[in-house]
């Protein structure tokens, strides 16, 4: 058993109050730094891809997990970021400048969708974002003079301060650095007033208005922030695939991103990362498992979609709070080992509107 005693309010603001936690994260970072020197080239690329997905997952988590706005078309913003970045590099814009402009451009695209989204929520918003994603994919396919259409757009190698980041290892560190910066920024933002306002808008709009939170504005802000980060991941994605085609940013990518935040655990940045790792590795796990499966099964198309569905169903049934919920329970079990009670995380009866007393 362990209790947290604070002697100062600033103690409560520490990100990692326990020594074990600090050591664990330090080891994780060290392992990630060592990884490209011990892993095969293929896995270095694979890990870079997971980092990119994790950035995108963080972006979507802000929208879905923190403000509760459903988006079924996050891939559209990844695509906008990817194409904007590739085209700017083409036009000779330096890499770092192009990344910053990509944030602004995809954020502006988010504003464009976020403003009309004030009026709708739930299913209508889901439909609107889905339609937007379909439109973006089509425009990218048809606007051949700009995007190269379905034959694609080659992406230049990133050059940062005169260094060409062409090798998988260099690109790996670029992705890792951007992921860590994004994560730290969001951690700070989400535990501050802005993050609290996001959560307020998600859980009760009526109360949020009553406390002086501009609900409409907050929802749009979340849209812009989320899209900007999705766009940033798109810029890195462009370098990862090296040749952009519209199919790369279709509904499958949107589906994967939505699964990451739902399975990761809504309302948690750690959940977004865990979800990205699980969903990102799933296709690899499937291809590794294929030789072990009976021939009739492994020859089937769409095995991945099936696996996504299965994972989602398992989580909805057994762990609605996602990987983050699992994590919390495991941690509670380990730290309170002999006296852990299974009911610690059982929710009190929730009061539905109709059963609350009048």
């Amino acid at each position, binding site marked *: 058993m362990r209790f947290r005693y604070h002697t*100062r*309010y*600033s103690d*409560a*603001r520490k990100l990692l109050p326990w020594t074990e936690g600090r050591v664990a994260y330090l080891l994780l970072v060290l392992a990630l730094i060592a990884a490209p020197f011990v892993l095969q080239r293929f896995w270095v690329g694979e890990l870079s891809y997971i980092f990119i997905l994790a950035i995108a997952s963080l972006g979507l988590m802000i929208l879905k997990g923190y403000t509760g706005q459903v988006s079924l078309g996050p891939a559209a913003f990844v695509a906008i970021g990817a194409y904007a970045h590739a085209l700017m590099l083409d036009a000779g814009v330096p890499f770092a400048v192009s990344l910053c402009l990509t944030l602004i451009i995809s954020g502006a695209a988010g504003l464009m969708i976020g403003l009309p989204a004030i009026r709708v929520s739930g299913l209508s918003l889901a439909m609107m974002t889905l339609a937007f994603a379909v439109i973006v994919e089509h425009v990218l396919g048809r606007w051949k003079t700009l995007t190269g259409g379905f034959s694609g757009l080659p992406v230049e190698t990133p050059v940062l301060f005169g260094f060409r980041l062409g090798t998988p290892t260099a690109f790996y560190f670029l992705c890792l650095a951007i992921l860590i910066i994004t994560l730290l*920024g969001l951690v*700070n*933002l989400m535990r*501050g*007033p*802005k993050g*609290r*306002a996001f*959560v*307020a808008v*998600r*859980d*009760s709009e*009526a*109360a*949020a*208005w*009553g*406390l*002086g*939170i*501009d*609900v409409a504005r907050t929802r749009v802000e979340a849209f812009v922030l989320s899209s900007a980060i999705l766009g940033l991941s798109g810029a890195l994605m462009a370098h990862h695939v090296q040749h952009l085609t519209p199919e790369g940013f279709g509904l499958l990518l949107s589906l994967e991103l939505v699964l990451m935040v739902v399975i990761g655990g809504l*309302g948690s940045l750690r959940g977004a990362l865990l979800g990205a790792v699980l969903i990102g590795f799933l296709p690899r796990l499937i291809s590794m498992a294929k030789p072990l499966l009976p021939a009739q099964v492994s020859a089937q198309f769409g095995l991945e979609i099936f696996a996504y569905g299965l994972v989602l169903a398992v989580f909805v049934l057994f762990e609605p709070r996602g990987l983050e919920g699992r994590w919390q329970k495991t941690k509670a079990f380990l730290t309170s080992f002999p006296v852990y009670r299974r009911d610690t995380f059982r*929710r*009190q009866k*929730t*009061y539905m*509107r109709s059963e*609350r*007393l*009048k």
Partner: protein
Amino acid sequence: MSLFEFDAVTLSFGGITAIRNLSFHVEKGEIFAIIGPNGAGKTSVLNVVSRVFDPNEGQIRFDGRDITKVPRKGVADLGIARTFQNLELFERASVIDNLRLGRHRFERGGTWQSLFNLPSHGRREDEAREAVEAIIDLLDLSPWREAMVGSLPYGVRKVVELGRALALEPKLLFLDEPASGLNSEETRDLSFWIEDIRRDLGITIVMVEHDMSLVSAVADRVLCMNLGSRLALGTPSEVQANADVIAAYLGT
């Protein structure tokens, strides 16, 4: 001049008139209760004040200023807080964060400082925490400080909602049925808190309440509404003895 004036206000939803030409005023430092049968329009009065709905006619004044046209998010800045009949809490946030959100009007801006976790941001967070701790002390919420609101029993949630409204540091506090769903012990605590809030924090209180024992215990004056209009206004004993009030409650 009274602190709060409700002047000939009418609110209708299509065919239903929720508030019908209603006038009353609340003095500074008063505890003012609104009673009435279901559907009398009590919650609608609160909703008009917090700008959920535009009144069709009439004027609402606070501190002598017409607030009928302030934007919805601006009501908190005037120093007007409210609670809700059906609890509107931030369920998936901790008690501390719920109370912190009560202070949102003091926490606007500073987004960049928080992004980089600058010392100035830390100081602001600590100050906010101190203000919130005072409320936790007042309402005996310390056992639940870090708990998710969604995991708390009903009685505690009602107290958290009261605390969140206090965190706004209001001049005028509207409570919508604060005692509904509470047991007698919790209701007694509530009546002490309401008196403390008025006496120690100097907050004027308007409460909608069905529990007449609570109303008689704490309220200075009572407004009884029926079908959107004023049926009676006076001290608790006057209103309870009023023939129209008795008739309205018995449904004759």
